[in-house]
C-alpha cells in the first residue's frame, strides 16, 4: 500500500516536471539579440531621437490581407533640414525594419539591406546613389501569409553641413494585423533556457535515482543522494559527471551537425538561413572540442588515472570538482547567444578581425567569455593532473613503468596547460576589444589580425594532440590486453609520445600557410610538420606489432581499436598533404581539411574513447556491457562514419570550400562546382543520420547494461595495470591510502646503472634517507 502511494507520488512529480518542460520553451527569442540593434538608433545624428522630427508611414491597411503587396510612403517633417535645390544634402534619410513580410525598394532612392530592412541609398561610401537627399521615399511591402507585423522607422533630418553635428532623427513604430505576445528580453530567454536545462537534467537524474531501487524510492532520500553528487570531490564521481557532460554535449554537437547536413544535402538549399548555418557550424565545432571531447577525456582521466597509477585520489580533489563545474558554467555562456538568435558565428577558430567586427553576432562576446571559463577549467585540471602524475604514483612505479594511458594523459595534460594560457590571453584581448574597446585586433588602430591566429594556433595545434593522445593511450591499453601481449616497444611508445609533445609546439604555422604569416615561419613549420609523422608512425607500427605472437580476443573494444588503426592511419596520412605548401594552397579550407580532421577527431579520438568506454565500463559500473549490441554499434558506426567522411576528401579535391552556407553545381546556364558534388553531399547527409543513430545504440547499451548487465569481476579482460586490482566498481578511496599497492615486476632486472637522464634526475632529487627500493 505504502509502496504504491510512493509510486503515485513519484509519477506526480514526474508529470509536473514534464509539464514544466513543455512550458519552458514558450518564451520567445528576442529578434535583435542581446543588445537590441534598433534601440541604438541613428546615434550619429544625435544620441536620442528628437520629438521635432516627425516621421510618417502611409499606405498601411487597417485590415491586413495575407500575402498582398502594399506600397508604403515614407515622409518626415521638422528638424534642421530645409529645401534647397543648391544643397540637396540638406534633407535626410531613413531606415525601416519590419518583423515579418518582405520589403522591396521601388526606385534607386531605396536599397535593401542584408537583414531585410530597407534604407536610403548613399549610405555606402562606394555608393553614389542620391537617396540620402530626399524627404520622401516609396517602398513595397509584401504581407506575411499569417499574422501581423511590426514596423520600426528611423528618419534623419540633416542640416546639410556634411557633418553629424546639428542633425536630428526621429522614430516611429507601427503595428499592423494581429500581434504576437510581447517578446521576451534576452535575459528572460536565458533564464528560461537555464530553467529548461535544469528541469530536463533533474528529471533524468530523478529517473536514474528512481530506477536504482524503485521499491525503496523516497523523496527524502533523493536530495542527500543528489547533493552528494554535485558537491562530490571524489575522482570517480567527478569522472562520472564529466562523462555525462561529455556524452550530453556529444549529442548536442551531433544534432547541430545533422541540422546543417540537411542544409547541405542538396545544392542551393535554404533550409537554414545563413545566420543560423553560421551559428550552427560554430557551435558544432566549439561543442565537440570543448564540451564533448575534452570533458570525455577528462572523464576518462578522472576515472582511470588515480586507479591506474595506484593513488587514492587526485592530488587536489576540490580543484578537480571546480575544473568540472566550470564546464557547464561555460556551456551556459557559450550557448546563451544561440537562445537569443544571436549565437557566435565566428567558427570555432574565431578568427580576428571578424570576431571583433560589428558584423559578428553579439553572442560572440558571450562565446568568448565562455571560452575563458573553459581555459580556466583546463588550466586547473592541468595543474591537478600534472601534480598527481609527478607525486602520487604508487611505490615502485618509476616513470618508465607507468601504464601507457597514464603516460598519454601526462603528455596531453602537459601540452594542454603549457599551451592554453596563450589562448586565454588571446580571448581576454578579444573580450576587452568587444567590451571596453581596446584595440588589439582593431585594424584601424594598427591591430594585427594574425596575432590572434598565432595565439590561437599556438594553443590550437597542441590542443589537437591533447585530445588525440589519450585516445592513443586507450588503444595501447586495449590492444595490449586484448592481444594478451605486452605492448610492443614500451619505451619507444613513451619517447614517441614525448616527441609528439615537443614537436607539437613548433608546427602550428601549417594552419596559416595562406594567411600572410611571416614567410620564414611558413617555411620552418613546413619542415617541422612533416617531422610529426615519424613518432606517429612509430606508434602505429608498434601497435600492429603488439598483436604478433599474441592471442587476440575479439571484443567490442578490440574491434573499435582495430577500427581506430584503420581510420587513424587514413587521417594521419591525409595530414601529410598539408605541410606540402603547393598542395595546401589548394586544399586549405576545403572539405579535404574537414575530412582530414574528422578522420583524426572521430576516427581517432571518438573511436578511441568508444573503445575505452567498452573497456572500462565494467570497472566503473561493476556490470559488463552487452557484446552483441556493442558489435552492432561498431558495425553501423564504423561503416556510416566512413560513408560520411571518405567522400569529403573527394569534395575537397574538387574544391568545395568548408563553412559555406550552400553550394551550386554546374548547369547549362551557369558555371559552378561539378554536378557529382550534389550526389556526394546527399550520401554524406544520409550517412550522418545513420552515424547519429548508431550512437544512440551506444547510449542504449550503456543504460541497459548499467542497469541489468552481468556482474563484472575485478579484472574482466585480464589487464595488468593497477585499476584491475580493486573491485568493480572501485571502493572509495580508490586505493587504500594506508596500504598503497606496490608495483611488482614480472622480470627482475639486474642493478643496471641509471642512464644519463636517470643520473641527472638522481642528482636533482632530494637524497634518499630511507629504503633504497625506488626505481630509477
Amino acid at each position: 500500500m505504502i509502496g504504491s502511494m510512493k509510486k503515485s507520488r513519484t509519477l506526480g512529480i514526474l508529470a509536473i516536471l514534464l509539464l514544466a518542460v513543455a512550458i519552458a520553451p514558450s518564451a520567445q527569442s528576442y529578434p535583435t539579440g542581446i543588445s537590441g540593434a534598433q534601440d541604438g538608433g541613428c546615434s550619429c545624428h544625435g544620441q536620442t531621437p528628437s520629438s521635432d522630427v516627425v516621421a510618417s508611414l502611409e499606405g498601411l491597411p487597417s485590415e491586413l490581407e495575407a500575402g498582398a503587396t502594399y506600397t508604403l510612403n515614407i515622409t518626415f517633417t521638422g528638424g534642421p533640414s530645409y529645401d534647397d535645390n543648391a544643397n540637396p544634402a540638406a534633407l535626410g534619410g531613413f531606415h525601416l525594419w519590419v518583423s515579418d513580410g518582405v520589403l522591396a525598394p521601388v526606385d534607386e532612392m531605396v536599397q535593401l539591406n542584408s537583414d531585410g530592412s530597407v534604407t536610403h541609398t548613399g549610405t555606402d561610401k562606394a555608393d553614389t546613389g542620391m537617396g540620402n537627399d530626399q524627404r520622401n521615399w516609396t517602398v513595397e511591402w509584401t504581407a506575411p501569409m499569417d499574422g501581423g507585423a511590426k514596423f520600426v522607422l528611423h528618419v534623419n533630418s540633416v542640416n546639410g553641413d556634411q557633418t553629424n553635428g546639428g542633425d536630428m532623427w526621429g522614430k516611429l513604430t507601427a503595428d499592423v494585423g494581429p500581434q504576437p505576445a510581447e517578446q521576451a528580453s534576452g535575459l528572460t530567454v536565458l533564464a528560461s533556457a537555464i530553467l529548461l536545462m535544469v528541469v530536463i537534467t533533474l528529471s533524468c537524474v530523478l529517473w536514474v535515482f528512481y530506477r536504482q531501487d524503485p521499491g525503496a524510492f523516497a523523496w527524502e532520500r533523493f536530495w542527500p543522494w543528489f547533493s552528494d553528487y554535485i558537491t562530490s570531490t571524489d575522482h570517480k564521481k567527478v569522472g562520472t559527471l564529466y562523462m555525462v557532460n561529455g556524452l550530453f554535449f556529444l549529442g548536442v554537437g551531433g544534432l547541430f551537425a545533422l541540422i546543417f547536413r540537411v542544409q547541405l544535402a542538396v545544392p542551393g538549399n535554404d533550409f537554414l538561413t545563413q545566420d543560423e548555418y553560421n551559428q550552427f557550424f560554430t557551435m558544432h565545432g566549439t561543442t565537440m572540442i570543448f564540451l564533448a571531447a575534452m570533458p570525455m577525456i577528462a572523464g576518462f582521466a578522472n576515472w582511470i588515472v588515480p586507479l591506474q597509477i595506484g593513488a587514492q585520489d587526485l592530488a587536489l580533489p576540490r580543484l578537480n570538482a571546480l575544473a568540472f563545474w566550470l564546464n557547464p558554467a561555460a556551456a551556459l555562456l557559450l550557448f546563451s547567444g544561440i537562445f537569443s538568435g544571436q549565437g557566435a558565428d565566428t567558427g570555432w577558430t574565431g578568427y580576428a578581425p571578424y570576431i571583433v567586427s560589428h558584423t559578428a553576432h553579439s553572442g560572440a562576446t558571450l562565446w568568448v567569455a565562455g571560452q575563458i571559463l573553459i581555459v580556466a577549467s583546463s588550466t586547473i585540471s592541468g595543474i591537478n593532473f600534472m601534480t598527481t602524475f609527478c607525486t602520487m604514483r604508487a611505490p615502485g612505479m618509476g616513470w618508465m613503468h607507468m601504464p601507457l594511458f597514464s603516460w598519454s594523459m601526462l603528455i596531453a595534460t602537459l601540452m594542454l596547460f603549457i599551451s592554453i594560457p596563450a589562448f586565454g590571453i588571446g580571448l581576454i584581448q578579444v573580450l576587452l576589444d568587444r567590451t571596453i574597446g581596446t584595440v588589439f585586433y582593431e585594424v584601424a588602430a594598427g591591430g594585427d589580425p594574425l596575432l590572434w591566429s598565432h595565439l590561437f594556433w599556438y594553443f590550437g595545434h597542441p590542443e589537437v594532440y591533447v585530445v588525440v593522445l589519450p585516445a592513443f593511450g586507450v588503444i595501447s591499453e586495449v590492444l595490449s590486453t586484448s592481444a594478451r601481449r605486452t605492448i610492443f616497444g614500451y619505451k619507444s611508445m613513451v619517447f614517441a609520445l614525448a616527441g609528439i609533445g615537443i614537436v607539437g609546439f613548433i608546427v602550428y604555422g601549417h594552419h596559416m600557410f595562406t594567411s600572410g604569416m611571416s614567410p620564414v615561419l611558413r617555411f620552418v613549420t613546413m619542415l617541422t610538420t612533416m617531422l610529426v609523422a615519424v613518432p606517429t608512425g612509430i606508434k602505429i607500427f608498434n601497435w600492429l606489432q603488439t598483436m604478433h605472437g599474441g592471442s587476440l580476443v575479439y571484443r567490442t573494444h578490440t574491434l573499435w581499436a582495430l577500427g581506430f588503426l584503420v581510420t587513424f592511419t587514413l587521417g594521419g596520412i591525409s595530414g601529410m598533404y598539408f605541410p606540402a605548401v603547393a598542395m595546401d594552397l589548394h586544399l586549405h579550407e576545403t572539405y579535404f581539411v574537414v575530412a582530414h580532421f574528422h578522420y583524426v577527431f572521430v576516427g581517432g579520438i571518438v573511436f578511441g574513447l568508444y573503445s575505452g568506454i567498452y573497456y572500462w565500463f565494467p570497472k566503473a559500473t561493476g556490470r559488463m556491457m552487452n557484446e552483441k549490441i556493442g558489435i552492432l554499434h561498431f558495425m553501423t558506426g564504423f561503416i556510416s562514419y566512413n560513408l560520411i567522411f571518405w567522400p569529403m576528401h573527394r569534395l575537397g579535391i574538387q574544391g568545395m570550400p568548408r563553412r559555406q552556407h550552400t553550394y551550386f553545381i554546374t548547369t547549362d546556364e551557369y558555371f559552378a562546382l561539378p554536378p557529382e558534388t550534389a550526389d556526394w553531399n546527399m550520401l554524406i547527409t544520409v550517412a550522418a543520420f545513420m552515424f547519429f543513430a548508431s550512437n544512440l545504440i551506444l547510449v542504449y547499451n550503456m543504460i541497459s547494461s548499467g542497469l541489468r548487465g552481468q556482474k563484472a569481476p575485478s579484472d574482466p579482460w585480464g589487464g595488468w595495470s593497477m585499476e584491475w586490482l580493486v573491485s568493480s566498481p572501485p571502493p572509495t578511496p580508490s586505493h587504500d591510502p594506508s596500504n598503497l599497492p606496490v608495483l611488482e615486476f614480472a622480470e627482475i632486472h639486474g642493478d643496471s646503472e641509471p642512464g644519463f637522464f636517470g643520473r641527472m634526475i638522481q642528482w636533482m632529487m632530494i637524497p634518499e634517507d630511507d629504503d633504497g627500493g625506488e626505481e630509477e
Partner: protein
Amino acid sequence: MEAGGEIFWYLFDIFNFWAAIVLFIVLVWMFHHSLKYRSKDGSDNNIDDFKPGVFPKENDDLKMELTWTIVPFILIVYLTYIAWGPIDEMWSADPDAHEIYVTGNQWYWDFDCDPFRDTENAPESYLSMENRSSTVFYNANGILICEISTIEVEGQIKPLLRVKADESYGFLLTSNDVTHAPFFLDWGIKEDTQPGMETRLYYTPSMDEIGSSLLMCTEYCGKDHGYMTAVVEVFE
C-alpha cells in the same frame, strides 16, 4: 576542367602513391596479425602472464623499432624535399607580371585591372592609352590583358574576371573589413586578404586552363561568406 593546378596534381600523385603504399602495408599487417594471432577458441590465453599490479615482461626489438623510425624518416625527408621544390614557383614575385588588385569586402569581390591605380608615375605608354580604366586593360601592344564584367550565377550577379592564357599575373590582395581569401579553383591557389596589409599571389594560367572556373571565399567572413563568389575566365 578539374580543380587544382599543375603543381598540385604533380605532388598529389606522388603523395597518393606513397600514401597507398603505407596504407597497404598497415592494412595487410593489421589483417594478417589480427587474424593469424587471434584466440582461435575465443578463450583467454594469457600469453605474457598478465597479473594485476605486476609490470609485465618486456616485449621489444630495438632493430625493428629503429627500422620503423628510420625508414619513415627517410620517406619524410624525401617527401619534404619533393614538397619544397615547387616553393620557388608558388612563392616568387614576377617583376613582369600584370598586376590586378583584388579587394575583399563583406561580401563581394572587387577587382581592378589598372595596375597603376595607386601610383602617380605610371609609364608614359600607359598613361597615353585611351582605354585605360579599372575594368579593362590593354598592354603596350594593344593586346587585351585583363577585363572585368559581370555574370549571372544562380540568379545573382557576380563579377567576372577575364585573363589571358600564358600571361603572368600578380594579384595584389587586400581587404576592406575582415579576412577573406580568394580561392582560384582551377589554379589550386589561394591566399588570405587581410585588412591593413597587402598579400600577393602570382600565377600564369596555361593554355590548358582556358575556360571558366569559380573563385570562392575560403576564409570565413560572416553571413554571406558562402555567396562571395566570382568567375574567372581564361581566354586565348
